[in-house]
């Protein structure tokens, strides 16, 4: 039994070709990132069995769902998958309970993994069970859709931009629930998104698709630290680092500890020792050769230059840095890089103007 998610297929249509050979970890959240038309939704539909590209192959944690070489194709209703679609997909002729039980009732008792009341509790929808889907907000509908998918006892949960149709407030309302699923359920998820923020917040593993091809695939931190990513990931390059809460200071700041040193952020409510995921944008990082004492920038960590690369903006470059094993990116001008004579291996000080905490 080979653990992992494998998908290999080609799709050729007018103005659109998709040629993928993915092998992804069989646990955690894998984000499929790309612009519309990059093929991420098609990839998800192939895994779900809703599309059947000829000559395709897909297998999830040892179960082969499609192998055209052996004329094997498991239809979608025989695959242990849960799918959450982009827009509300609740059945209008059933109430919330009817929707949630629709899949659950069709799963043999021995295969059931989650209990209805537990899942509803986890997603905060217990009080909505008797309502009609028409009487729910967009965020509530998506939570019901997630609960419905979970109760089919999936071995893989596919989420197709589940937040794309929601306003920022509703998104913020659902993200903590997704993080809870991630923490509390041992269930691999494939999360399609075109939002770098969602990816940074949720993903363990990142696959970047562009024009129907996979241009990067690997652990989140590793992929985000690459300098050759396309589109939004390059324009707004950012990395994720893991930190723990060290101390709450009296002046309204919280000190965080990470592998490369310390960073200070606005007061957090979490107790010391709590693990947090930090999102640091390359544009918020500047470089100096010596520690700056006469500066308002508080966060200044020691780092080593690893690599420099051109960006799409004339005169700007991206610098990849390493600090205690964590990767940082800095977006600076070519002129500054020349003035500082930056080159790989050089020790520098990374001044971090802003840190976004993701959990």
């Amino acid at each position, binding site marked *: 039994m080979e653990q992992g998610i494998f998908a290999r297929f080609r799709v050729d249509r007018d103005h659109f070709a998709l040629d993928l050979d993915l092998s992804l970890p069989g646990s955690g959240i894998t984000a499929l990132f790309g612009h519309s038309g990059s093929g991420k939704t098609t990839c998800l539909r192939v895994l779900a069995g809703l599309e059947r590209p000829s000559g395709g192959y897909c297998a999830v944690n040892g179960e082969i769902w499609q192998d055209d070489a052996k004329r094997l194709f498991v239809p979608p209703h025989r695959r242990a998958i849960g799918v959450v679609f982009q827009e509300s997909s609740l059945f209008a002729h059933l109430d919330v309970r009817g929707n949630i039980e629709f899949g659950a009732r*069709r799963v043999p008792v021995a295969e059931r993994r989650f209990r209805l009341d537990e899942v509803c509790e986890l997603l905060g929808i217990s009080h909505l069970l008797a309502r009609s889907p028409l009487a729910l907000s967009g965020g509530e*509908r998506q939570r019901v859709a997630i609960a419905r998918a979970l109760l089919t006892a999936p071995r893989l949960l596919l989420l197709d931009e589940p937040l794309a149709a929601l306003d920022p407030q509703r998104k913020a309302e659902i993200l903590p629930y997704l993080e809870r699923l991630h923490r509390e359920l041992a269930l691999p998820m494939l999360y399609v998104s075109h939002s770098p923020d969602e990816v940074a917040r949720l993903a363990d593993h990142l696959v970047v698709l562009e024009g129907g091809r996979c241009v990067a695939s690997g652990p989140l931190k590793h992929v985000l630290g690459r300098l050759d990513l396309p589109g939004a990931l390059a324009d707004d390059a950012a990395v994720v680092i893991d930190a723990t809460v060290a101390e709450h200071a009296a002046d309204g700041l919280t000190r965080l500890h990470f592998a490369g040193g310390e960073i200070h952020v606005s007061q957090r409510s979490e107790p010391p020792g709590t693990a947090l995921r930090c999102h640091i944008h390359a544009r918020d990082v500047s470089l100096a050769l010596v520690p700056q004492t006469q500066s308002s920038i508080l966060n200044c960590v020691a780092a080593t230059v690893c690599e420099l690369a051109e960006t799409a903006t004339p005169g700007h470059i991206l610098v990849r840095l390493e600090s205690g094993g964590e990767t940082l990116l800095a977006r600076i001008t070519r002129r500054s890089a020349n003035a500082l004579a930056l080159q790989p291996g050089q020790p520098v000080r990374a001044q971090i103007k802003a840190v976004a905490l993701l959990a």
Partner: protein
Amino acid sequence: MAPEDLAAIWLTLKLASVVTLLLLLFGTPLAWWLARTRSRLKPVIGAVVALPLVLPPTVLGFYLLLAMGPQGWVGQLTQSLGLGLLPFTFGGLVVASVFYSLPFVVQPIQNAFEAIGERPLEVAATLRASPWDTFWSVALPLARPGLFAGAVLGFAHTVGEFGIVLMIGGNIPQQTRLVSVQIYDHVEALEYTQAHTLAAGMLVFSFVVLLALYTLNRQRRPLA
């Protein structure tokens, strides 16, 4: 009301009920096929189903009469099965009416199936429902307004038949004499009072049916 009038009303309601039932039974799968197929036959079958909308009932009646007659292939079949000949019987009326009211049942149901779209069916598949299961548990419930409209229109249209009844069924009391034919007979006999009673009844019936249908359509909320 005269006994012949009551008999005509009873026969009409009986015919319309049987025909509506048969059309729901056979029209629903046909509508499903028309809504879902990518076959090149789709426009052909669709056009055949719609023919009664534009053809004079006499044309359809004429060919059905030939087919069901002693020399026709349907007639030979029914005779060899020991059923006798269908023209001028209630059975013949049922067959003719099923053809004549077909588009009134199939088209609303087909439209309802098409309006559901692909998504709910895909969702059902990801929730472990087989295609057959999906048809019963998702497609039919979501198409209920269309099924209702099809049944009502099929029933009302069958009640309102005249031309094809004369072609196929003639005018046999208790067997093929429907309300529409009875009205014709009354008028021919200059029995305007009796004609009025039946005609006004038909008018009110048809109006109420259509009013109910349009009112329900207006109240229906959009699908989520």
